[in-house]
Every structure is written in structure tokens, then in C-alpha cells.
């Protein structure tokens, strides 16, 4: 961290020299932008890490942990053509330690054997029950809403059919609902197929995103997205906001924003784990990130009236600005910063600035990665991937995000684009 701060000081000093000596207005403006951007990124890193540490201390200090098992939980598993993964997913759900469970598998008009495979698991032992319902294909949000409408439980847990749950996941999520203001709890998502550099980079990204970002947000009880692989909701709250909307490609993000708008709190449970498959080739990864970016932007646009309502809905405004920063400003600034640095290097020979700028961010990334890996007791062998992350991965992803933002701005058509699963969950 000290190294990062020293590099920041050096980079800022270098920028100051360029600003003073430059006569070109474009260079001066660029230097100011880079300076503001760098400061914002460093503040973001330090704040998130500080919040995350505080949250971890608070969790470990909370000794009044009583097991709460009264609420009936309805687990909804929407599926469409999931024959490769549905068996392992259902086995993990059935083996949950939480006793009071209803499992609803909603087959969204699959064209493969998903329905037949799931149907074999149907059972009812009085406490736990599994039912498979088939309906015409209408999309994930419709399938989730159909499941919610048929659910008996007062807590709704939405699980992706390509995810496998840790056996304590539901029990751990339920505990948060002892606080009546909590409307939803996000689970933790781990990548299961770390068999290539690309999936290892995503595994590292997930670990950092969960343990630094989500854990930090959990301190304020303002987690901005309940992940598709695992999230639990209070049924009353979800009904109050009208369930999942059908007009965005990030129905989970839209629902979370609607709950925050109603004044509810959203928490995160790091030990409730869902294992999921990450895309194994670059084009599938770009497809996923493209959809996420456009979906988030659609959700923000839908709730845009709250962006400036700091006095009425401060928490929602804060969350939405944070999401805009992460999904739009940061990618634009990072790519623009790289282009500007290349221009500076070619035009004025200040190529060392790019090197120090890159090292500064890499040091921050490595520090963050080591902190998160130690926190989760994961292998430290993933930490060196932070260098590749900063060098290649994030730039390629950010370019896709920028194009997605531009296409969303111009309203270019998009479709859901289901990712092909390899069936790595076992």
C-alpha cells in the first residue's frame, strides 16, 4: 500500500510537471482529468477496503448468533435448457441443512431433457418438498415471478439452475431476516471451473468483487446487486415492489434498486456460497459483460428520477451514482487514460508516466487481491493474476463495456443470449 502511495505521489508530481510545461489546451485538460480520475480511484479503493475490514470485524465480534429456523423458505430454480447442470444443482439444494424448505423448479419451456431430469427428483416428506412446474418459454424474470406466485414460503430464495449451493447456504441467509428492515440478502458466488487463465482471472475478480466491494457495501446495508446464482428475499417486500420486471436485462439489479427505493436494507452473507461456471472463452465472457452493462444501464435509466433526489432518497441516489461510476465512468476513464498516456508518450516522450500509472494501479490490485484471498482463505497463487488482470483483462472488458454503453445510448436492439454451459458443476 505504501508503495502504491509513493507511486501515486510520483505520478501526480509527473502530471504536475507536464501540466506546467504544456502549452496545448488538450494536454492540460487531459492532465486534470487523469488527476481527478486517479484520486477518485484511490479513494474508492481505500474506502471499500476500510469498510470491508470494519464489516469483517463487526461480523466476527457478533457473538449473539442464535440459529433461527422458523420461516418457510421457497427456493425458486428457473431453468431453460439446463440438462447438463440441473442434476448437480438440485442435489445441492436438496441436501441443504435448513429443514423448512419448498423447492420449485420452473421449467421455462426447455427444448431438452431438463423437465424430465428434474421431474425424477420430485418428493414431499412433510418438511421439505420439491415440485417441478413447466410453462411456456417467456424469459427468466417471468419464470421467477411464476415461481414467486406459486411459493408458500415467506422467504424466497432465487437460485440459478447452473449453480451448486454449499449445504449451509440457506441456513446462513435466513439468519439475516431476524432484522425486519432487511428485504434481501446476497449470497457469495465462487467460480468452480478455474481450469484456464481466463477463468482464474474471473475467479479473482469474483473474490475481490465480493469480499471488498459487497462486503464494504454490507457495512451500510446497501448491497447494490443480488446475484442471480444466490439471493434471498422477503416475500412481502418483493410483492410490494411488483416482483421482477420484464423490461431490463438485469432484473436482479432492477429489483434491488426498487427495494432500496422503498427504504429497505440489503445485506450480504459471505459464507453462503453458490458455485457457478464462468465463461471459458473470451467471446462468451464479452457476451456476459455486454449484457450486464446494458442491463445495469437499463435499470438506472428506469429509476433515473432518483439520481438527483439526495434529500428524499439519499441511499438510492448514492447507490445509483456508485453503479454509474463502476459501469460507465470508470471504463471510459480507464480506456481514455490509456489513450491519453500513449498520446503523451508519442507526442512528448513522457512514456515513464504510463509505466508508473500502470504500476500504481497494479500495486493497488495486488494489495486488494492479497487482502481478499487471505480473508477467504483461498490460495494465494491467484494473486499474481492481478498483474495480467491490469495488463490485459480489464482493458478488454472495459472496451466491451464502452461499446455496450454506446449501443444502449442509441437504443440498439439486443437479445438475452443464453451462455452455453459446459457442465463443470459436480
Amino acid at each position: 500500500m505504501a508503495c502504491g502511495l509513493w507511486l501515486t505521489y510520483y505520478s501526480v508530481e509527473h502530471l504536475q510537471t507536464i501540466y506546467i510545461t504544456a502549452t496545448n489546451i488538450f494536454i492540460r485538460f487531459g492532465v486534470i482529468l487523469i488527476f481527478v480520475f486517479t484520486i477518485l480511484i484511490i479513494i474508492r479503493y481505500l474506502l471499500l477496503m476500510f469498510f470491508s475490514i470494519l464489516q469483517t470485524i463487526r461480523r466476527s465480534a457478533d457473538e449473539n448468533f442464535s440459529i433461527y429456523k422458523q420461516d418457510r423458505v421457497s427456493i425458486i430454480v428457473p431453468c431453460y435448457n439446463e440438462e447438463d447442470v440441473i442434476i448437480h444443482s438440485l442435489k445441492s439444494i436438496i441436501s441443504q441443512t435448513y429443514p423448512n424448505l419448498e423447492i420449485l423448479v420452473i421449467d421455462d419451456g426447455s427444448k431438452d431433457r431438463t423437465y424430465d431430469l428434474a421431474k425424477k427428483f420430485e418428493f414431499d416428506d412433510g418438511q421439505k418438498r420439491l415440485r417441478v412446474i413447466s410453462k411456456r418459454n417467456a424469459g427468466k424474470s417471468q419464470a421467477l415471478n411464476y415461481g414467486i406466485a406459486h411459493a408458500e414460503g415467506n422467504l424466497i430464495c432465487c437460485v440459478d439452475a447452473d449453480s451448486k449451493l454449499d449445504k449451509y447456504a440457506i441456513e446462513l441467509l435466513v439468519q439475516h431476516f431476524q432484522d425486519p428492515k432487511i428485504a434481501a440478502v446476497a449470497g457469495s458466488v465462487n467460480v468452480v471451473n478455474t481450469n484456464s487463465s481466463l477463468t482464474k482471472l474471473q475467479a479473482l475478480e469474483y473474490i475481490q468483487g465480493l469480499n471488498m466491494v459487497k462486503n464494504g457495501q454490507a457495512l451500510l446495508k446497501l448491497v447494490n446487486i443480488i446475484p442471480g446464482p444466490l439471493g434471498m428475499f422477503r416475500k412481502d417486500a418483493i410483492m410490494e415492489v411488483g416482483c421482477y420486471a420484464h423490461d431490463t436485462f438485469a432484473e436482479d439489479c432492477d429489483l434491488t434498486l426498487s427495494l432500496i427505493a422503498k427504504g429497505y436494507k440489503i445485506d450480504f452473507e459471505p459464507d453462503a456460497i453458490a458455485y457457478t461456471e464462468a465463461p471459458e472463452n473470451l467471446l462468451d465472457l464479452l457476451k456476459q459483460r455486454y449484457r450486464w452493462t446494458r442491463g445495469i444501464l437499463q435499470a438506472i435509466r428506469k429509476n433515473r428520477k432518483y439520481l438527483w433526489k439526495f434529500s428524499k432518497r439519499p441511499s438510492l441516489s448514492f447507490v445509483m451514482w456508485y453503479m454509474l461510476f463502476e459501469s460507465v465512468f470508470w471504463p471510459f476513464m480507464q480506456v481514455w487514460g490509456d489513450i491519453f498516456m500513449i498520446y503523451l508518450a508519442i507526442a512528448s516522450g513522457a512514456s515513464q508516466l504510463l509505466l508508473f500509472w500502470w504500476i500504481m494501479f497494479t500495486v493497488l490490485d495486488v494489495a486488494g487481491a492479497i487482502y481478499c484471498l487471505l480473508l477467504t482463505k483461498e490460495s494465494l497463487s491467484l494473486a499474481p493474476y492481478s498483474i495480467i488482470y491490469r495488463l490485459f483483462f480489464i482493458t478488454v472488458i472495459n472496451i466491451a463495456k464502452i461499446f455496450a454503453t454506446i449501443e444502449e445510448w442509441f437504443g440498439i436492439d439486443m437479445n438475452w443470449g443464453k451462455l452455453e454451459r459446459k457442465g463443470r458443476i459436480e
Partner: protein
Amino acid sequence: MNVLSFLSFLILAITLLTMVFGVIAYFLYKAREKKKKGAKMTYEKALKSEGRDLLYFTKE
């Protein structure tokens, strides 16, 4: 050439190449999606393109 200059050049070259690669990868993704979309021929689409009734078989 000292170490710093060499590393600066290396990062500069990698950054430039990664950006070009990122743009190419994005357009490859878009081309793949377009190809996939075009490959999905429905009876209605075929009927429209042919302009006459079509005989088709379904697999039992």
C-alpha cells in the same frame, strides 16, 4: 537503453496492442451473435422469403 525506458516501452506497446485486441474481440463477438441470429430460420421467415407455401416435415 536503461531498464525504466525499456519497461516503459514494453507497457506502452502492450497497452496499445491490448486496446486493438479488445476492439477486434468485441467486433468478433458481435459478428458471432449476428451469425447465430441469422442461423435461426423459422417457418414464418422462410415463408416470407420464399413468397409461397412451403412443405416441411417434423421429427417425431
